[in-house]
């Protein structure tokens, strides 16, 4: 069992810069946790503190219940895959894979057998005698994976391991890493700035911003119930529209004023959100793909605007719309609706697909269930 727990962890660099604030995060044994966020958000620092490559300024880091704050990386029994792969250029592929086992002083026969087994699993067998300099990016990435897998660590740490690969290989390796993790069942912490990677690979995803953990949840929950405007905008591609709005009570449910137009919400919005009565809604969130066909909604649930730009994506198109007060709305519409810049059109709002945010950026509390 190797549960990992951060308890009130802070990281302050000697120059006074605080990279991580008061982090509380538990990672279950066997879980695949992805840490995601824009660059400089503290996700890599967090991973490096877990590896023992960065000191912890305050708070506790526990692995399997034991406090490891001051343990040298070699004593933590953790394997890591680096963004640059960090292979040993003077050693062959075999030498690279065997290195951690040799350092652990395992018997030579076992070292060889285990290296071979992992090489076979990652299809590196024909390359065993080559030096890293003669390998392609994808092959190097595999060697780095093999060097981590050959051990029996309490956790795998991966720091943007796919960011140096081309798009096609990245998609392929994404699936392979996820499959490999399920097969070995080893706790894995994976850092990326790519929200697609995060959503497709992780059992749970931790979203970071400016050194603070924003939300940690399953990909689906993050998508459906973002806790604040940052998570809402960061998760999902293309990102969610955030539009200033005002809400006031009305007959038959609350009504919104958005871009100078009035949208009535039905009671159904109250089944999704927990209204307390004195809520100050300042923004609504609407995902481009949730912008509805105006014919399918009531007349009091439409917004009007002028097309600024369209991008054809095959079956669909991205439409950049300037609403009546100049607010920009991005909509993902069917491509068969012919639109040109300058056209005045209406789009539909489906209250069930709306997200509501308050002045401080927090989402209105969601109802349970």
């Amino acid at each position, binding site marked *: 069992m190797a549960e990992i727990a951060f308890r009130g962890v802070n990281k302050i660099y000697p120059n006074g810069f605080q990279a991580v604030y008061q982090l509380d995060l538990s990672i279950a044994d066997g879980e695949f946790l992805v840490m995601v966020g824009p660059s400089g958000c503290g996700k890599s620092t967090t991973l490096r503190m877990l*590896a*023992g*490559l960065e000191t912890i300024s305050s708070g506790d880091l526990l692995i399997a219940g034991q406090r490891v704050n001051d343990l*040298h*990386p*070699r004593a933590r029994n*953790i*394997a*890591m895959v*680096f*963004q*640059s792969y*960090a*292979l*040993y*250029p*003077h*050693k062959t592929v075999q030498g690279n894979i065997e*290195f*951690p086992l040799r*350092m*652990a002083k395992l018997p030579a026969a076992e070292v060889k057998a285990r290296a071979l087994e992992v090489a076979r699993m990652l299809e590196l067998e024909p390359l065993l005698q080559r030096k*890293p*300099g*003669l*390998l*392609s990016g994808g092959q190097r990435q595999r060697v780095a994976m093999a*060097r981590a897998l050959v051990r029996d660590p309490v956790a795998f740490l991966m720091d943007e391991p796919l960011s140096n690969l081309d798009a096609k290989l990245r998609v392929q390796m994404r699936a392979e890493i996820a499959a490999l993790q399920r097969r070995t069942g080893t706790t894995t912490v994976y850092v990326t700035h790519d929200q697609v990677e995060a959503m497709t690979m992780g059992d749970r995803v931790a979203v970071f911003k400016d050194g603070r953990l924003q939300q940690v949840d399953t990909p689906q929950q993050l998508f459906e119930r973002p806790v604040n405007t940052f998570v809402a905008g960061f998760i999902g591609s293309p990102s969610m529209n955030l539009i200033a709005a005002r809400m006031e009570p009305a007959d038959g449910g609350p009504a919104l004023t958005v871009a100078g137009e009035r949208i009535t919400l039905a009671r159904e919005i109250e089944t999704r959100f927990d209204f307390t009565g004195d809520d100050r809604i300042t923004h609504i969130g609407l995902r481009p793909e949730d912008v509805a066909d105006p014919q399918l909604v009531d007349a009091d649930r439409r917004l009007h605007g002028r097309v600024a730009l369209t991008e054809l994506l095959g079956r669909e198109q991205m439409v950049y719309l300037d609403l009546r007060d100049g607010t920009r709305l991005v909509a993902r519409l069917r491509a068969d609706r012919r639109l040109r810049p300058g056209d005045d059109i209406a789009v539909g709002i489906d209250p069930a697909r709306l997200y509501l945010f308050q002045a401080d950026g927090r989402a209105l509390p969601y109802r349970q269930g």
Partner: protein
Amino acid sequence: MRRVVVYMLLVLFALLCLVPIAWLVASAFKANADFHVYPVVPPVDRLTLANFTSLFTQMPFLRFMMNSFFVAGATVILQLFFSSLGGFALAKYDFAGKKTVMGVMLATMMIPGPVLLAPMYELIYHMGLIDSHLGLIVPGMVNVFGMFLFRQSMLSVPDEMLQAARIDGCNEFQIFWHVVMPVSRPIVGAFCLIAFMGTWNSFLWPQIILQSSDRFTLPIGLNQMIGVYEADYGAMMAGTLLAVLPVVVLFFLLQKEFIAGLTKGAVKG
């Protein structure tokens, strides 16, 4: 056309550099009687190996050579170890006073060597190392220039590689030994060559420290011939020729290392 001129100039320059060596080789095979008679090369039938014979029969030349090998070998190994270790620390670790330490080290490089002869002699004298090979080896163990050479080269070793080794179970010395040193092979070769030549050819310090002729290194032994075997320039030339050989051999051995190091990574993998 321009190329031809450049090459001709280069060839001319190379020949000029070779003249003293050619003269040395020729002199080593000249009989003493012919030494001043034939300024360049005597007729083939007058060439002789007598100089080499007298080198080994009339003086302990072999002993000089062994002494030189021992002193130079030991110095190079110790210098390599301490300089690379020091360079590693300066390149890859942050510690209090690092800048000061480096400043002081640089300052020591600016002090001319002869200024240190007297205090160094005093030190070695009190250590009881006069007239011993240790008296040559100990002062040469640490080389500031070497430390900076290694520091400069090790700065280019990626930090992530060190971190990978740390995670793979290395302690800090093992990182140095298993990862940083093998990666720094080209600079190790260059440094060995520089350090070996410096010690092998070293004259002034051994001349001061060594007293008994059975501990003499080659340069001191050869120099001795001028006084004792006054007329024997031939033997001295033969001895010098033999003394130059190890450096030449080492150079050609390590030259491969240089080239391997310099071209590494030039081709995209």
